[in-house]
């Protein structure tokens, strides 16, 4: 799963800390999600999308793994 969080954060002039406070998680969680090391729950993905006034599909891009 890819995401556009870093790009959207830059667009909104938001730091990782500010985003973390906004969605109620730690900065480490934002780092992990941004670096695609961790896929957030649906609830958290919704909160992130809502912060950037986007839909979940606009923030998170599903990529099927090569089989």
């Amino acid at each position: 799963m890819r995401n556009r969080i870093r790009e959207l954060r830059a667009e909104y002039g938001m730091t990782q800390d500010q985003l973390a406070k906004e969605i109620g998680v730690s900065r480490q969680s934002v780092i992990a999600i941004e670096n695609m090391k961790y896929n957030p729950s649906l609830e958290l993905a919704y909160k992130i999308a809502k912060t950037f006034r986007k839909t979940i599909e606009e923030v998170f891009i599903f990529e099927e793994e090569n089989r």
Partner: protein
Amino acid sequence: MEYVGLLGGMALALSGLYFGRRAAKNRQGLDELHEHIWRKARSISWYFTLVAIYVLLILSVLDVGVRLIPALGILLLVHLGSWGVAGGMLMAKMVEGDPGEGGKTQLLLSIIIGIVFLIGFGIVSALTGNWKFLLFSLFPIFTMIMVFYAQAMFRKRQSRDPQ
């Protein structure tokens, strides 16, 4: 004396857990990533505990007598130690690439590993009655923590002064 160790150890562990969780809560650290990491770490620690049980059973078959209390102590150490180390490693993996957080997590991990080794050598020393095991373990453990500390400081400085 045993009561001091048992109750003191438990009191220290519980107060550590309480203050640790309170500090984490203050910086919104008790989130879903925290839950995910520590659940996974607990699952990994059971594999280590199973191996430790198996090793203790083999030692028993080979007639190397490890008495009940030391054996339980070893199992407790392996379980809690591998839980802590696995959690630290998973967290380090999650934030790797970030200069500030990566360094801090690596330092914390090195301290956890250091404590586990210290307790391990302490048990070996107590079992063998030879305190040199504990004494000689101090220098490498201290060196390892210092190396990680220097690395964390170096990364922090690098993140402050971008090229």
